[in-house]
């Protein structure tokens, strides 16, 4: 009963407009006050202890790397590289959006940051070429879902802080699924644009391709340096994030020479506040998760699922359906903090690899980024293009279905996720 009240308070207050972090806090406080057996001091402690982990320090550092990358003009260079290779195919700049997001994902760790960076540059340009803004926005919003799947990924860092899973293996595990996502979205884009006869770019000459590659070479090296330092055992994920910051600073200050102190401080300020907003949600979700354990949420949920079926494949299907629905109506951080420990325990018991589970969970939540009512990528693109969220979602429907198909593939073919980590960093 108390658990039901807690969940109801959380969902109702989130939907009616309370700040999400405080809606989670309010649900937790309601539980504490009604149960009468948990001291409020625990909540006060949780506000600090929920964010008191070295691994979380990597999150603002990866966001800072992304901010600096934008300021250094890396986004435009990566878009130019993508344009040189796929701009002339059916889909034109829409293809460029898909592949620019794929490359950007290797430097930034956030879907929202990628959506904002590529959307700001590409949506106005696509509109000038004659693409409907709703379609352009839908393509970018969908393409950016690959952000946290391809390493580095702040969501994987967070997951590594919550459950016992190697962040290095998660990072490597995301490469193939991320590539399949981008190829699938590229195919959808190609098909739609061919059918609707959307404009294409002129084919780049060999010299143009060479220039674009040369110009973007230092930026293209970034993912190798960042992920290489982590996977190669030189740096922990948090340290890898610091390496990313200084590599992007090196690009902006020394190579491209378009970043100075003013921009660095501006980026650090924006990042510190953006990261704090995430961390407030982490802190209150951490408290909620502790209370959910006390209230036996895990036992209740797993019993309910097992009452439907005890077959692992059916449980995975139920898990996917639940995650997809929650991803549509809730923010990612509380879902991860509250439910990852429960479901990881259940499925690891069935012999599933935690890296595989992490991939399934994060991909589900990424699909939630392009579905109303709480599809944050749609919100970001709506702010850029001024297209309504529902109008944009209508154009994103084919991408939604192809991503669900990829999700099915990744869920039932674990090899796709595990082949690379098993080769590079075998499980302990």
């Amino acid at each position, binding site marked *: 009963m108390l658990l039901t009240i807690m969940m109801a308070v959380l969902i109702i207050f989130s*939907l009616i407009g309370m700040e999400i972090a405080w809606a989670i806090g*309010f649900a937790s406080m309601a539980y504490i006050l009604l149960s009468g057996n948990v001291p409020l001091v625990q*909540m006060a402690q949780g506000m*600090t202890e929920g964010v008191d982990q070295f691994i979380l320090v990597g999150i603002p550092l990866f966001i800072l790397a992304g901010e600096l990358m934008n300021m250094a003009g890396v986004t435009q260079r990566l878009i130019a590289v993508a344009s040189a290779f796929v701009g002339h195919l059916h889909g034109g700049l829409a293809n460029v959006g898909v592949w620019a997001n794929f490359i950007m994902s290797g430097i930034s760790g956030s879907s929202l940051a990628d959506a904002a960076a590529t959307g700001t540059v590409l949506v106005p340009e696509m509109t000038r070429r004659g693409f409907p803004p709703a379609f352009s926005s839908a393509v970018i919003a969908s393409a950016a879902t690959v952000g946290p799947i391809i390493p580095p990924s702040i969501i994987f860092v967070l997951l590594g802080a919550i459950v016992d899973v190697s962040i290095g293996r998660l990072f490597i595990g995301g490469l193939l699924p991320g590539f399949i996502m981008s190829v699938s979205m590229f195919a959808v884009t190609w098909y739609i644009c061919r059918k609707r006869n959307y404009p294409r770019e002129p084919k780049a000459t060999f010299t143009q391709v060479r220039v674009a590659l040369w110009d973007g070479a230092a930026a293209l090296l970034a993912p190798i340096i960042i992920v290489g330092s982590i996977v190669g055992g030189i740096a922990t994920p948090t340290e890898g994030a610091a390496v990313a910051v200084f590599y992007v600073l090196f690009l902006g200050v020394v190579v491209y020479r378009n970043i100075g102190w003013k921009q*660095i401080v501006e980026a650090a300020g924006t990042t*510190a506040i953006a990261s704090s*907003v995430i*961390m407030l949600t982490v802190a209150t979700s951490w408290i909620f998760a502790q209370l959910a354990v006390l209230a036996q949420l895990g036992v209740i949920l797993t019993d309910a699922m097992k009452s439907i079926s005890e077959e692992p494949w059916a449980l995975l299907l139920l898990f996917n359906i639940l995650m997809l629905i929650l991803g549509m109506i809730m923010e990612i951080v509380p879902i991860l903090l509250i439910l990852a420990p429960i479901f990881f325990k259940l499925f690891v018991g069935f012999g599933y690899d935690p890296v595989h589970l992490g991939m399934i969970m994060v991909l589900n939540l990424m699909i939630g980024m392009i579905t109303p009512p709480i599809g944050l990528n749609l919100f970001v693109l709506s702010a850029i293009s001024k297209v309504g969220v529902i109008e944009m979602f209508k154009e994103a429907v084919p991408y939604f279905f192809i991503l669900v198909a990829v999700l099915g593939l990744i869920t039932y073919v674990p090899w796709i996720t595990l082949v690379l980590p098993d080769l590079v960093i075998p499980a302990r």
Partner: protein
Amino acid sequence: MDSTPRGFWARLDRAVELFLHYASAALLLTIAALVLYVVLMRYFFAQSPIWGEDVPRILFIWMTYLGIAVATKRGQNLRVTFILEKMPARPRLVLELAMHVIVVVMIAVIAWHSWPVIQLNMGMRQLSTGWSQAVSYIPFTLAAVLMIIYTLQLMLKAVRDYQAGLYAPGQTGGGH
């Protein structure tokens, strides 16, 4: 110079906001530099400072809570407004204010209960730095005071936006 109390308080308000903004930026850059220093020391000199994880972690907690205060002031905390935006002006204002009151009371209650935690940790020292363990718990309490003030400011802004007619259904203005 504007010496009226209104001007003074507005300036103080702005100065505190800017201080918090730049302090959180400086903390983030310091964290990045310290973490990189640890990697370089380990990679090139095979030695890591004993405080390598603890100092960045503590600075991160400070950055987080100073940043949250600024985010609250600017109404940047993540929230969903699609239901609010469809509501008529008056019920919307009432709902906005009610939610702000809940948040203020909640933060005040948590902050009140954070004081014993600080006192308990005051005398305990961290092995790596020798700092009091309370250093990690102070930022939340400090930020809580600021968040209460800033949420009250948001309530005043919501009333002003309502009076200025910014609360018509479909408007995204007002509140945050």
